[in-house]
């Protein structure tokens, strides 16, 4: 069993067995395969990169090539127990609309994203004066797919403004979980579990 990315491991640990799951931006299907094999989850995926879709399908997973910005509307209301959006929110055209869609399709939604207010990012901008390039945000400003950078506090505000329920939150520094205190400064990466 290959090791899951830490944010995906958190999501996998917190999904109930035999759930119905839609993984949006599922990559090569690593999380879906783990959920299927370890928790008998009925997992479906949406992924934009053809090579990733091919890899996922060749693992026997049900993954369709598509774009979170345009292809979510076909999924009926409440058709999944969980909708998952891992490291994809910041690449979408309208993250607020996408979160609405997640909670329309799924009863609950996992959202994970790199925190743009992590101290290393802040230092990079403050002292370097250039757009930060870090481990979790490795691209330069002109070729990054991350068109909506977001901080943990920004995300909390969006959740609050949308009157959404926060059912869980997890924070990662390096590949280890870190505390909730001052997460906006010390967490590189956040995972939220939401409900309407």
């Amino acid at each position, binding site marked *: 069993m290959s090791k899951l990315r830490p944010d995906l491991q958190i999501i996998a640990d917190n999904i109930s067995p035999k759930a119905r799951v839609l993984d949006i931006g599922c990559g090569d299907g690593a999380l879906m395969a783990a959920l299927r094999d370890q928790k008998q989850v009925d997992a479906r995926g949406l992924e934009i990169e053809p090579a990733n879709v091919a890899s996922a*399908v060749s693992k026997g997973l049900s993954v369709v090539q598509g774009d979170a910005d345009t292809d979510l509307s076909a999924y009926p209301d409440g058709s999944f127990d969980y909708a998952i959006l891992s490291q994809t929110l910041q690449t979408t055209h309208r993250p607020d609309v996408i979160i609405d869609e997640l909670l329309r399709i799924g009863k609950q939604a996992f959202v994970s994203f790199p925190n743009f207010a992590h101290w290393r990012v802040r230092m990079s901008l403050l002292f370097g004066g250039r757009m930060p390039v870090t481990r979790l945000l490795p691209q330069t400003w002109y070729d990054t797919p991350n068109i909506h950078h977001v901080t943990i506090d920004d995300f909390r505000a969006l959740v609050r403004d949308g009157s959404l329920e926060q059912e869980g939150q997890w924070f990662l520094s390096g590949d280890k979980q870190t505390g909730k205190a001052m997460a906006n400064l010390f967490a590189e990466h956040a995972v939220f579990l939401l409900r309407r």
Partner: protein
Amino acid sequence: MSEDERFGLDKRVRLLGPLPLDSGSALAPVELGYETYGTLNADASNAILICHALTGDQYVASTHPVTGKDGWWTRMVGPGKPVDTDRHFIICVNVIGSCMGSSGPATINPATEQPWGMEFPVLTIADMVRAQALLLDHLGIECLHAVIGGSMGGMQAINWTTLYPERVKSAVVIASAARHSAQNIAFHEVGRQAIMADPRWRGGAYYADDDPPSSGLAVARMAAHITYLSEAGLTEKFGRRLQDRESKTFGFDADFQVESYLRHQGISFVDRFDANSYLYITRAMDYFDLAEAYGGTLAHAFKGSKTRFCLISFDTDWLYPTSESRTIVHALNAAGAAASFVELSSAFGHDSFLLKNPEMNRIVDGFLKAGENT
């Protein structure tokens, strides 16, 4: 099982029928030409049906009796291939309406003891599928591990899942659509008119004199062949290069390589295909609209479906473009069906599904194997 007379290459069977048709008439008897490959396992659970395209036939992985060429999909079907003759039991049937051993306009009408000609009933894709189901009954196969097809074969594959949902565990639909578009119908009408404008067509009654409308059929094939390719593919293959000459002739010979190629495609086609079959099969494709029987909502066709679906399209295919596959995928998602879909890159337009494409093979291989583990 290998001793069973029903299994093997170049088989013919005459089933009593009658086969009720969508048009309201019925076909009896039902003659079917087919081939099987591999060995049916003890519980008959390893059967895969391959559905062929408009001008295809049952010789999917064996030498064609007329052209002497290899089977049309040996890249996909064979020992160690995604559709594995060592692992699967594979069936490929000539569609009814065609001309390679199955009932069609060139076969004998029992009422008149003459070739059917235009008296042959007009068919639909669903009629073709029901005829295939008759053959599976005859072969003792209740449930297919998979049904696989490209282009018109994909239409049959997807129609299998709605007509016989309990008989199909998985479906692979490549470079296809859930309905024929106005453009698809328009191209087919050009082909049909070319055939019917040939004075030798004579209302379809040309069999007795053995003098078929070859010129019309060749033109139909030439026009259709353009739609199977892409502009980039044509440019890459031929450009504006001249055929066996240094300069233009200022005449109407095939000066350009692309003209020579199309003429060759037309001329070689008429040796292996019946003009009336071309009329009937293109008509069946034009009538195809899977959503029609479901109030126009495609998702209703797949309601409660337990079948696993795998759809593949090609980025340069403008005959059955990706948007047509995506329409099916959206309907499958809306119905909650287990669907996979990918658009692959290829320079060769609609014909890509017949050509070498390792990514397509990898996907089909993984998709089929996943269904065997459960």
